[in-house]
């Protein structure tokens, strides 16, 4: 089985975190948590990765997933020296039960504690300063050796977590991976039950979210599960998950969703899509009353023979490429042309610039790509292949050159 480390040794530094995050989110958009975690552990774009765990109420889910994929992945556990006794016991139990082989306990440096909180009462006067001393700074030092870290944060936890993605750019320094971002509370419970995982003993006593003992209180029915953290304070994060490294107070505005358009690539380069008539699926084609502007969306596993009767009245066919490694679309295009289709033929999806000549030679007129791919492989890279008629054995063997 391929494990991290068997990836190609990349002979250059990683690309900027922002680019990798955009690409990773697009690539794993429709993946399940387990798949995201599994790939994050082996993906060269993610780099060296550690799981950061509080061994709190729900941590066991990610820890279990990790133990199934690779028990030797580093797990960073922050012992603030203010934790519940139950958490420390639970941490040791879970690590042993799951067979985790590289749990690293992270603590504040003794000299820093002596300087800033010799009596252990800082939390009473300044919770932010206490968190910074006991959690943020120690973790920052520990993460210096990693390109990415895995967290258990979920959208349902609310606050600024409500818009969480699988992959986040942490100040252009590291990537944060949130495999459980889209999980609902019941998913977490189902997973723990189905896998017979040990629960944190405090959960049964009314603590659905567990931090340091002084700043965690019980939560009443109907309250947000994290309501017991820094109760009655204008604080809902300890600081390790701040946006752009700063504490952000108050409700977060949803990020501005720029509705970006797909890009159409032709021999002339990039252009916006000029087709506004919509697309039919093959199964609804029979119901469509053709008036000359009929367009068809074809999945990559379609049998073109089924279309034989309709080709004459279809103006455009758009063939899906679920992955650039799936070459069925090329043969589909060729078949459609051999069957006499003369209309507009478009490839849509994950087609890369290096495949442009293949697509054109197979019979496509144009390619529709997503904005993130267009950013990563800009127009110049596509235009480099625009002379697709040159150096073509096929046209020579067919007497067309």
């Amino acid at each position, binding site marked *: 089985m391929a494990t991290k480390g*068997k*990836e*190609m*040794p*990349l*002979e*250059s530094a*990683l*690309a*900027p975190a922002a*680019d*990798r995050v955009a*690409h990773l989110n697009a*690539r794993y958009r429709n993946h399940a948590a387990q798949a995201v975690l599994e790939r994050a552990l082996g*993906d*060269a*774009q993610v780099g060296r990765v550690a799981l950061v765990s509080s061994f709190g109420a729900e941590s066991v889910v990610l820890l279990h997933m990790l133990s199934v994929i690779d028990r030797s992945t580093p797990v960073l556990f922050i012992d603030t020296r203010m934790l519940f006794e139950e958490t420390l016991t639970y941490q040791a139990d879970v690590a042993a039960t799951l067979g985790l082989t590289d749990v690293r306990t992270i603590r504040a440096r003794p000299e820093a504690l002596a300087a800033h909180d010799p009596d252990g009462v800082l939390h009473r006067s300044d919770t932010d300063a206490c968190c910074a001393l006991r959690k943020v700074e120690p973790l920052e030092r520990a993460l210096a050796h990693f390109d990415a870290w895995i967290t258990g944060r979920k959208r349902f936890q609310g606050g600024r977590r409500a818009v969480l993605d699988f992959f986040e750019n942490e100040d252009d320094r590291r990537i944060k991976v949130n495999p459980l971002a889209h999980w609902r509370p019941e998913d977490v419970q189902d997973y723990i039950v189905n896998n017979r995982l040990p629960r944190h003993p405090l959960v049964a006593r009314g603590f659905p979210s567990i931090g340091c003992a002084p700043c965690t209180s019980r939560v009443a029915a109907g309250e947000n599960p994290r309501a017991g953290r820094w109760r009655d304070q204008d604080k809902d994060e300890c600081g390790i998950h701040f946006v752009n490294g700063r504490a952000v107070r108050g409700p977060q505005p949803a990020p501005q969703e720029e509705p970006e358009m797909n890009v159409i690539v032709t021999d002339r380069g990039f252009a916006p899509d000029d087709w506004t008539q919509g697309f039919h699926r093959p199964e609804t084609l029979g119901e469509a009353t053709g008036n000359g502007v009929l367009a068809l969306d074809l999945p990559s596993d379609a*049998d073109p023979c089924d279309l034989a009767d309709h080709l004459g009245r279809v103006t455009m066919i758009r063939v899906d490429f679920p992955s*650039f*490694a*799936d*070459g*069925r679309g*090329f*043969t*589909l295009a*060729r*078949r459609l042309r*051999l*069957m006499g289709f003369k209309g507009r033929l478009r490839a849509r999806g994950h087609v*890369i610039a*290096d*495949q442009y*000549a*293949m*697509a*054109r*030679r*197979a019979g496509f007129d144009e390619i529709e790509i997503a904005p993130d791919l267009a950013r*990563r*492989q*800009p127009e110049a*890279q596509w235009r*480099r292949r625009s002379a697709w008629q*040159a*150096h*073509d*054995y*096929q046209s*020579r*063997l*067919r*007497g*067309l050159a």
Partner: protein
Amino acid sequence: MYEYSEFDTAFVRERVAQFRAQVERRIDGALTEDEFKPLRLMNGLYLQLHAYMLRVAVPYGTLDPAKMRQLAHIAERWDKGYGHFTTRQNIQFNWPRLRDVPDMLDALADVGMHAIQTSGNTIRNVTSDHFAGAAADEIADPRPFAELIRQWSTDHPEFQFLPRKFKVAVTGSPNDRAVIKSHDIGLRMLRKGDEIGFEVVLGGGLGRTPMIAKVIRDFLPVADLLPYLESIVSVYNQLGRRDNKFKARVKITVHEHGIDRIRELVEAEFALRRSTFGGADQQILREIEARFRRPTLRDGRPADAYEASRAADPVFRAWADTNLVAHRHPDHAIVTISLKAHGATPGDASADQMRVMADLAEEFGHDELRVSHEQNIVLPHVHKADLPAVHARLAAAGLGTANIGLVSDIIACPGMDYCALATARSIPIAQQIATRFDELKLEHDIGPIKLKISGCINACGHHHVGHIGILGLDRAGVENYQITLGGDGTEAASIGERTGPGFPADEIVGAVERLIGAYLKHRESAEETFLETYRRLGMAPFKEALYGDERQRNAA
């Protein structure tokens, strides 16, 4: 032999320029590793256990001295001074650096060579009979057809992202020296009246699910070759499984749908595609054939020197007995140079050895060299009078091993010493077996036998078709070697049968020795080969030699 046309040359240069840009784009991040991987694979660049590996195509196994010298140069300049000839008539360099690879590809292009489609899920380098153009039993030279298929499959726009790799082999003789029934498509040349055509077999393969190819067309006229191949591959491209890498080869597609259903689909596709070539391909075939002119062999030169050396020099005689094959011209011989010196890595040649072979081809061999799928080098046209000189030069370069077709002429995959997939070592096992039988001085008495070793279930060492096959597996962290018997890669192809439990690394050489002992004891005469004895007697006496008497075992 075939020299690149201007078109070929321009194509390969353009391809190198593309790859150079792709390497840069990978390094600057425009291409993700996922996206770069198939592109580097299409250009022969693998990632192995320790480093990259560049696999260079030797189309249909044919080389000339200039090409061989350039391979030597590349080995010295960008690698560790040697190359490894493979079972698919390629050569592999095991230590290139990513940044150097475009320069290596340019150096290859200088002599009309490339690494295109030597890996990846595309149509791979077309292989052929290593005795093509020289063998006495040949209907026609298969290499022009292999070259036509190379041109057609190169950069074919439909077939660069197939479900899985796709291998084609062509043989021009009824005797199959190209293992065609273990290929995705095998083409066996036939004569029907005055017409030449091919029997087409589909869906052979080794790997974890070995299958013998099935006949899909019993006679395909030459003119229909490309449209028919294109029809097969397009049906596979649509139908082949993409959900499971281990079920993606066409042998599984054929197995799951049945050869009759596949034939129907292919014929329907063929009806659409047959007319698309319009004869231009046949014109190109004739041009290719003209470039494969046979060398002008000298008649009338006496071969006395050969007979004299045979009589006087037992070392030469032993070599001549094993390493020569009848040439279609009686004054000539086909020389096989063994890359299997006892104790050396099967298939490896140093840069110096490559240059010696290039020199010999130039002086004595009409500028022709071949790479055989059994990982040896062939000089196909040597006059018998020159054989003593050729042998002396080979022996001086450590290339005089007289073991072709014998027990130490072992095919072995790179195994765990190089390969990221391997589960056991193969090269050291091959070395130990060869060394042991060299000590026993029994090799020539044992006679023809094919011993093949794979270091994992993917079967790159072709163990399924070895008379004795050895498969190295990992059993709970310990190497364990299973033995199969009775495999055969010729026109009478068969898959070997497992003997029983495997052996640990330190017992496998003894096990092979016991098998050979059983053969020597049970053979009817010195003429009966190992395979013939096995086919006559079956598994029982060999099992007994391996594991002891069954009743005793039960009693114990």
